[in-house]
């Protein structure tokens, strides 16, 4: 298997539905909390070290071969807000479709059969990485990057932010991405001793609150 598969998986054009989601950027822009490149960077940093770390841990654990259904339950316990669980499962189902087309495997088939309405997206992504022959750390990187690239892309559309500035934000976050992916993979590596409690459960109150508020907006550009 090729390490280059990571580029395919982490590519923003990977057809798994991410383009319709802002990762909480749309409500933050509407509230005036994201208004420029600096505030976008702080938003992304906060999301990365909370929701991103949790998702990267789940993905690394799935890529390491831990029971995806147990991980799906661990994801539920770490996602108290209904709107975010719905989004995670919707994106998980779309990720599953793309993953089965690109890296078919019996493990993906089994999870798809057990969760026809979608498992949590990071779990599916981790299993996709495993099917592609990638390592847990690779899966953690893919998820961590997606955690910040989604809001950055959305901010370009929502704020007409200069795309060069938005890309520079992503580049500045690289050390944070390294730390997050490493922490997530290390946590997944402790599961044999500590169980799923080893997985991060970091939360961000405003992401949770505004995700549920956003789900009730009658008119919005992004699905989440």
């Amino acid at each position, binding site marked *: 298997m090729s390490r280059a598969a990571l580029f395919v998986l982490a590519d923003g054009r990977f057809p798994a539905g991410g383009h319709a989601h802002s990762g*909480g950027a749309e409500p*933050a822009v509407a*509230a005036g*909390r*994201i208004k420029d490149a600096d*505030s976008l960077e*702080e*938003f*992304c*940093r*906060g*999301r*990365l*070290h*909370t929701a991103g770390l949790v998702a990267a841990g789940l993905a690394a654990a799935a890529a390491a071969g831990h029971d995806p259904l147990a991980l799906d*339950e*661990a994801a*539920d*316990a*770490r*996602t*108290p*807000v*209904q*709107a975010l*669980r719905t989004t995670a499962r919707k994106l998980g189902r779309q990720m599953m479709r793309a993953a089965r087309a690109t890296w078919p495997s019996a493990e993906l088939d089994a999870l798809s059969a057990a969760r026809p309405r979608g498992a949590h997206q990071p779990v599916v992504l981790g299993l996709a990485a495993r099917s592609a022959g990638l390592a847990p750390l690779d899966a953690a990187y893919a998820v961590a990057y997606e955690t910040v690239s989604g809001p950055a892309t959305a901010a370009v559309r929502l704020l007409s932010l200069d795309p060069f500035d938005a890309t520079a934000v992503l580049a500045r976050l690289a050390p*944070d991405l390294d730390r997050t992916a490493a922490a997530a993979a290390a946590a997944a590596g402790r599961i044999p001793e500590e169980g*799923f*409690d080893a997985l*991060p*459960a*970091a*939360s*961000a*109150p*405003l*992401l*949770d*609150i*505004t995700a*549920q*508020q956003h*789900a*009730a907006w009658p008119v919005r550009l992004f699905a989440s």
Partner: protein
Amino acid sequence: MTLVPPPAAAAPGRTAVGVRATARITATVGGTATTLPVLDGDGPFELRRLRSHGSEARVCIVGAMSAPLGGDRLRIEATAQQGAALHITSAAATLALRGPDSEHATYDVHLTAGEHAQLHWLPKPLICAGGSDLRQTWTVDLAPTARLVLREEQILGRTGESPGHVATRLTVRRGGRTLLDQQAEYGPGAPGWDGPAVLAGHRAAGQLLIVDPVFEETPLEVQLLGGSPEDGQAVLTPLAGPAALVTAVAPDGLRLRHLLDTAQATFRRTVPGASAIREGR
């Protein structure tokens, strides 16, 4: 039942590593009411029995000394045995302060509720003073038929003061399966904590968790709480299991309390048999 001398015996001298104290409460059913066979204060935790309310036993935690300070290792264990109803509150806010050095403090709360038991953990807020560093955990084990009401509030810094650092983890297991697992980290050194995704200038954050088997049949609906942004914001949302969680942020502790009180009133109105959910003050 205490493993260390009670506060009256040996002044629990603060050593270089701070105070180590474990308070224990056990509630059990005796006749028609809940009794408290174990009510052991320790270190900074003095436990007072309050007048019971119906069949419910009520305990108030009174601070016997300033705690937690950096270096302290504090722990409270409370159990509501099968069929018992236990309500725990505190007399005053908990103030986390910096210790003699930069060592962090820990404060671990272990709550256990047996079959058909009911446990309310409704203390006053935690205030994280500038320079403080606290790691707080709540570990809750519930039998499938147990009911829980838990509130926690963190206020970052006293008025006009820079915030301390606090890291929390709330883990709730029901019938051995994890129902909720949530960490939070605020204050200096926590990446992105004051940015637009996490607190965005708010200085008070809190949660109200209600676990009740009745939600198996009729889960609570999502509710958005809070008015204008300057009053803070909150959302009530059902968990994947039979529970509902209110997550709230506010500019200060007063407005946070108002949001959580509103949420608690909503529970009392909408949940059958929830009249037992009362204020914790």
